[in-house]
């Protein structure tokens, strides 16, 4: 809860966190307030540091997937997938991944992306006082978690991507179920529009709040939906396609303005895009094996980056010839967005700090590793 910090002059430091009902995870934001306006903001992270990079050095390559799942627990498949891509690059088997495996990775990634964005929406509603948004978004998220469970056997921390492919094939009724869910979900997105976008009060709270300009976003290394909300049209699935993305048609979602409303709009549009991608991939998926046997040992260095739900996730893996990685470096998009937080927060009112923090979609698991 908020405790008074020291008082220097007439500006006051306020601690928002680490235990706070609205920060979605364990991190601290120290805010320097002059009257109602924020003068300086200093994020303090590291409360959830678990040493994943160090542990990964004593687990076999294939077993690290279990760890990377738990990096961002809201969006597990995308993180394990990024790790598997990096290791495949290291082992040199990137060209050998079968087509079916690549398409299945796309399907599972996009389903996970929708679930992650719905979790963000469910957490963002109560931030601004709209508790109905929590219930509605979680209701829809249940449908996607059911789909993910049918595909992988688990709702979160699924351990689904493997070095060399994916763990298992899709069940027989899966394409039909996906279509039903997506059709239902698109109808519900119209309802969300009326609850959020067309809601005058929501627009009052989010328009013009927490503006991040294009130059600032690119300078501070912000990627993903936060970058696209500032008008920068860069999506790694289009620029640097991996897996089957080169064969699928979609448009990245971009909004102008750079405020919280733009970030909201980008994520809603991304949910639509992801659903369309899932259906398209399920139509185009070729028959065949979905996994290739990867070697145990690897040597060298390699890196791979993917478009995670929150931005650019980059894995840099070094091997020294044994069956364990020598070094796994994880680049978390939220870690970099956090360095831009002072720039975003300055000049806004104290009552908007929670709204801005919620709109950045902070996942502490991947930030603190």
């Amino acid at each position, binding site marked *: *809860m*908020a405790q*008074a910090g020291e008082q220097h002059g007439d500006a006051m430091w*306020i601690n*928002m966190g680490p235990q*706070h*009902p*609205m920060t979605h995870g364990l991190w601290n934001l120290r805010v320097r307030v002059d009257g*109602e306006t924020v003068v300086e903001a200093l994020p303090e992270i590291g409360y959830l540091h678990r040493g994943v990079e160090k542990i990964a050095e004593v687990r076999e390559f294939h077993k690290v997937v279990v760890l990377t799942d738990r990096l961002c627990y809201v969006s597990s498949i995308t993180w394990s997938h990024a790790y598997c891509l990096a290791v495949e690059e290291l082992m040199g088997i990137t060209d050998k991944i079968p087509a079916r495996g690549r398409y299945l990775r796309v399907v599972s990634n996009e389903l996970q992306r929708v679930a992650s964005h719905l979790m963000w929406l469910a957490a963002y*509603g109560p*931030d*601004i*006082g*709209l*508790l*109905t948004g929590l*219930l*509605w978004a979680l*209701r829809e998220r249940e449908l996607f978690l059911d789909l993910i469970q049918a595909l992988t056997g688990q709702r979160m921390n699924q351990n689904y991507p493997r070095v060399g492919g994916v763990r298992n094939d899709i069940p027989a009724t899966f394409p039909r179920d996906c279509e039903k869910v997506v059709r239902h979900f698109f109808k519900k997105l119209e309802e969300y529009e009326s*609850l959020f976008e067309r*809601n005058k*009060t*929501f627009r*009052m*709270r989010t328009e013009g709040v927490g503006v991040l300009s294009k130059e600032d976003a690119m300078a501070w290394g912000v990627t993903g939906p936060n970058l696209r909300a500032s008008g920068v049209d860069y999506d790694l699935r289009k620029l640097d396609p991996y897996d089957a993305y080169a064969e699928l048609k979609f448009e990245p979602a971009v909004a102008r303005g750079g405020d919280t409303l733009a970030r909201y709009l980008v994520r809603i549009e991304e949910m639509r895009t992801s659903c369309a991608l899932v259906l398209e991939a399920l139509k185009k998926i070729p028959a065949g094996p979905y996994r290739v046997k990867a070697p145990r040992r690897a040597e060298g260095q390699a890196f791979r980056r993917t478009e995670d739900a929150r931005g650019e996730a980059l894995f840099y893996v070094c091997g020294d010839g044994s069956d364990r990685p020598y070094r796994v470096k994880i680049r978390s998009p939220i870690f970099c967005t956090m360095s831009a937080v002072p720039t975003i927060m300055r000049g806004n*009112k*104290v*009552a*908007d*700090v*929670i709204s801005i923090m919620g709109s950045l979609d902070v996942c502490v698991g991947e930030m603190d590793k």
Partner: protein
Amino acid sequence: MSGHLIDLHYYVESVLSFLLGFGRDQLHGIGTASPAPLGGPLYGLGDLLGAEWLLVLLTWLLVVTVMVMWGTAVNLLVMMWIERKFYSRLHDRVGIKIGLPSMGFLATIPLLGGLFKNFVKRPSHLGTGFLQNVADGVKLVQKENLTPKSADAFTFHVAPVLIATSSLLVFAAIPFSEGFAVMRQVDLAGNSTNPLGILFILAAFGLAPIGILIAGWSSNNKYTLIGGMRSAAMLMSYEIPIILCIIAVVILTGSLDPFEIVRQQTVSLGEAVPALSLLPPTSSAPLYIPNWFIFPQIIGFIVFFVAILAEQERIPFDLPEAEAELVEGWLTEYSGMRFGLVFGFKWLRALAGSSLLVILYLGGWTGPAIGTGLSIGQVGVFFPPQELWFMLKVYGVFLVWVWISWTFPRIRIDQILHIGWKKLIPLSLVTILLAIAMRGLGVYA
């Protein structure tokens, strides 16, 4: 035209006078029959029981008690329960939608049981959930009432009392029908009247911000102080549109009497506005448009609606209370039943605000009714009685407020004050001008 069912003063007075008279007669009898040193005092006691002032005093006390019990015990629980059921439906929650139809025995009713079979099979809690609020109350009562060490003890204890009593005080002047009212006199024509009733209601409403400010200040916590000041700023700035809209209605009616205001809303619209003489003229026609003040005062209605919503500190206006930075705002340091009292009386203020809205704009307790031949006392019984119409309208308005509350995010404090000062006050001044124009130009009789 409906008639009232409960004439509070009359019933209480008759019951009490019967009881006191019975007691007096008995005591007189015992007194005359007793031996000398005891007989006189007993007879005197009987005289005391029969005294006029005792009857009046007890009548007033009991009337106030009935009103308070009705306001707090019954309406409070029902309002909290209805709100929970309603917003749970908005949230699409499964468990709370199951209620009465899921009770097991209903499926055993001979003919209608088939209707309930499906409900009973669904796994859910049994029951309606009404006692949840009672359980909450019991829980709060048995909690420890903490007082922060460095808080100003006197004002810390006085503040919730002030807020609670001012919320209850409003009910002294709000009538629920022509008979169910605490402050009520009967004039020569047999109509209820309470001159200056609206003034009393406004004064009682205006006490709450003081209590909130005192609560926020006395907790000796920087953040409750900020919350208390924000809350007081919001409440005081939203009282001005309320008062101005009431002034507009008073200009139209010419009286501060809630009974008179409602009575004037029973005439037909065609009579009140001569230009609309095409409408059915008399109020005894079966279907007519009554002269509810929402029609000439539509702007005032909207302004009053929004301003009373802010007075109740509901979402969208609850930033002083539930701001993420301040845990509960000015309520943070209160625990136990003190917290429960202040928190629960939010719904009581909702009832008061809703009643005020209904009285002023929606025709109060009037509504079509069928007269039955019965009569209690000297008053004929109608169905539906006035109390029922009043409660229906009040709960209807309350449900609209709940709907709004759970659909909108919170508005920031500077936006709240912006709305209050820059948008609502000019609009309410416009309503006053319209009311003056309508009266002055003879458009409105």
